[in-house]
C-alpha cells in the first residue's frame, strides 16, 4: 500500500538531481576561495614575521617589511569611517524615519542604489578632481579617505536602512501613540534596537575599503615614504597600493614578499569581519526580543 509508484520514483529522481546540481554549484563557489587562501598561506607564510610587520621596506622594495603601509591603511580606513558613518547613518535615519513616501524620496533612493554601482576608478577621478584639486587638499590621507568615504556612503546608507527597517513598525506606533515625537521614538526605541545591525553592517561593508586600490591611487597613496604619517594631510603608503606596486611596478621582488603582503591584507579584512560578527553575536545576546 505504501510502496512507491512510478510517479513517486520520477519525482524522487528529479529531486535528487536538483539537489546534486545545487551541491555542485556550492562546491564550485567554495573551491576558488579555498585555492586563493591556500595559495596565499603556502606562498606567503614564510615571509611573515614580526620584523616583516614592523619594519619599512628596504632595497627598492625587494626586502624589508610593510610597517608604513600597514599603518597607512589603518589611517585611511579610520578616517574614511569617521567621515562616512555619521553622514550615512544620518541620511539613512532621515530616509527611513522621516522622509514621506513621495517622488523625491524614491528618486533619492534610486540615486543611492546607482551610486553604489559606480566603478571605483570613477570615484578615484572624482576624488582627485574634487578633494585633491578643488578643495586643495593635495594628495593626502584626507583626500584619499574622503574619496573612500564617498564610495562607501551608499552601502553605509543601505546597511543602516535595512537595520532600521528590521525594527518592527509596531514598536514605532506604540511610541507615537503614547505621544512620543519621531526623534524620541528613534532615540528610545528604534536606535537601541538597530544599533547592533547598523554597526556590524557598516563595519562589514567598510572593511572592504581596506582592499581598494583605485580610489587612493591618485588621491593620497604613494609607493614609498620612509616615515609614518603624522597627520591627515600627509601622503601615505597603503597595503593595497603597496601590493599593486611590488607586484607590477617594482622589479626583482621575491615572490614570497608579494604573497606575504597579500596574506596580511586578506587577514586585515577577515579580522575586521570577525570583529564585526563577534560584536553582532555579543549585542544580539543583550537583545531582549
Amino acid at each position, binding site marked *: 500500500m505504501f510502496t512507491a509508484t512510478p510517479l513517486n520514483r520520477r519525482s524522487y529522481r528529479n529531486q535528487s538531481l536538483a539537489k546534486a546540481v545545487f551541491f555542485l554549484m556550492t562546491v564550485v563557489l567554495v573551491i576558488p576561495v579555498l585555492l586563493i587562501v591556500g595559495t596565499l598561506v603556502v606562498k606567503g607564510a614564510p615571509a611573515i614575521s614580526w620584523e616583516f610587520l614592523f619594519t619599512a621596506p628596504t632595497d627598492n622594495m625587494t626586502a624589508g617589511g610593510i610597517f608604513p603601509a600597514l599603518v597607512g591603511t589603518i589611517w585611511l580606513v579610520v578616517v574614511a569611517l569617521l567621515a562616512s558613518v555619521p553622514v550615512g547613518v544620518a541620511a539613512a535615519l532621515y530616509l527611513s524615519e522621516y522622509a*514621506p*513616501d*513621495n517622488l523625491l*524620496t524614491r528618486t533619492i533612493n534610486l540615486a543611492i542604489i546607482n551610486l553604489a554601482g559606480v566603478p571605483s576608478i570613477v570615484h578615484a577621478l572624482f576624488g582627485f578632481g574634487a578633494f585633491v584639486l578643488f578643495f586643495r587638499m593635495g594628495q593626502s590621507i584626507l583626500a584619499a579617505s574622503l574619496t573612500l568615504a564617498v564610495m562607501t556612503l551608499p552601502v553605509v546608507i543601505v546597511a543602516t536602512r535595512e537595520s532600521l527597517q528590521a525594527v*518592527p513598525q*509596531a*514598536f514605532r*506606533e*506604540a*511610541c*507615537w*501613540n*503614547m*505621544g*512620543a*515625537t519621531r526623534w*524620541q521614538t528613534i532615540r*528610545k*526605541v528604534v536606535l537601541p*534596537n538597530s544599533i547592533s545591525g547598523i554597526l556590524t553592517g557598516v563595519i562589514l561593508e567598510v572593511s572592504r575599503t581596506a582592499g581598494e586600490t583605485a580610489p587612493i591611487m591618485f588621491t593620497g597613496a604613494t609607493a614609498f615614504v620612509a616615515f609614518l604619517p603624522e597627520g591627515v594631510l600627509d601622503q601615505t603608503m597603503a597595503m593595497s597600493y603597496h601590493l599593486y606596486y611590488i607586484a607590477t611596478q617594482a622589479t626583482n621582488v621575491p615572490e614570497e614578499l608579494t604573497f606575504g603582503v597579500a596574506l596580511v591584507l586578506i587577514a586585515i579584512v577577515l579580522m575586521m569581519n570577525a570583529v564585526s560578527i563577534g560584536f553582532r553575536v555579543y549585542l544580539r545576546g543583550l*537583545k*531582549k*526580543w
Partner: protein
Amino acid sequence: MDNTAGTRNGDFAIETRGLNLWYGDFQALFDVDLGVKRGMITSMIGPSGCGKTTLLRTCNRIIERLGYVRTTGNVYVLGHDIFGDDVELVQVRKQIGMVFQRPNPLPISIRDNVLFGFKLHEARLRKVSAAEEDEVLESSLRQVLLWDTVKDRLDKPATGLSLEEQQKLCIARLLPVKPQVLLMDEPCSALDPAGTEAVEELIWKLRGEYTILIVTHNMAQARRASEECVFMLLGKIIEHGRTEELFLSPEHSETADYIEGRFG
C-alpha cells in the same frame, strides 16, 4: 478648554463630519459622520476590510505615516478639530490611547513599558521621585488587574509575558499619560478564550473612567460589552444606535444580515 474656531461643544469624545479617506486612489472611508459619546463604551462591527482600523487610525492621526493617505472632512476630539493648524500631534495622542490588534509591548522591561509615556511627559516637566514612579507603576498595573501577576518580575522584559498579559500591559502603559479616550482595535483577536474573557472584563471595568471605542469581530463581545454599537460596511457607517436595539431590531437589512452571520 479655549474657544478657537475649530471647537465644537457637545457630548462627543470623538466626532467626525463628512470624513473621506483615500489610500492613493482607493477610497476607504465615505462621508463618515460618527459621534462617540463621552464616558461610554461604543463597539464597532463590520466585515474585514470595511475601514474600521482606518477610521480608528484617523482619530489619532497615526495614519498619516503613510505618505499616500489623503483625507477630507473634519475630526473633532473632545470638541477640538485635530486637523487644525495650531494642533500639536503630541497633545492629541496624549488624549487618545490606542490598543492594537497584536499586543505590541516595547522590548524593554515591564516597568519601563508602563512608565514610558509618564517619563516622556511628566518627568520632563518636573522632578519625579522614584517613589512616585513606583506608585504610578503599581496603580497602573493594578487598574489592569496585572499587578499581582507581575509584581515580582517588574524588571524582566515585557516580551516574556503571555499574550493576554502583554495586551493588559499595553493598556496599562496608556494610563499614566491620562488619556480620556481609548481606541481598541480588535484587542482580543490574538488571545485565547480565557484571555479574551479577562481582557473583556478589564475593558468593562474601565467603563466610565474612559471613553472607549472598541472594534470587534465578535458579535457576542459587542453585545455583552458595549452600550452603543456602530455597524460599518464598505467604508460607510450603515447604522449606529444603542447596542441592544441594534441587535434586536436593526433598521437596515445589511445590519440584520451581518449580525445573523449571513456574510462577513
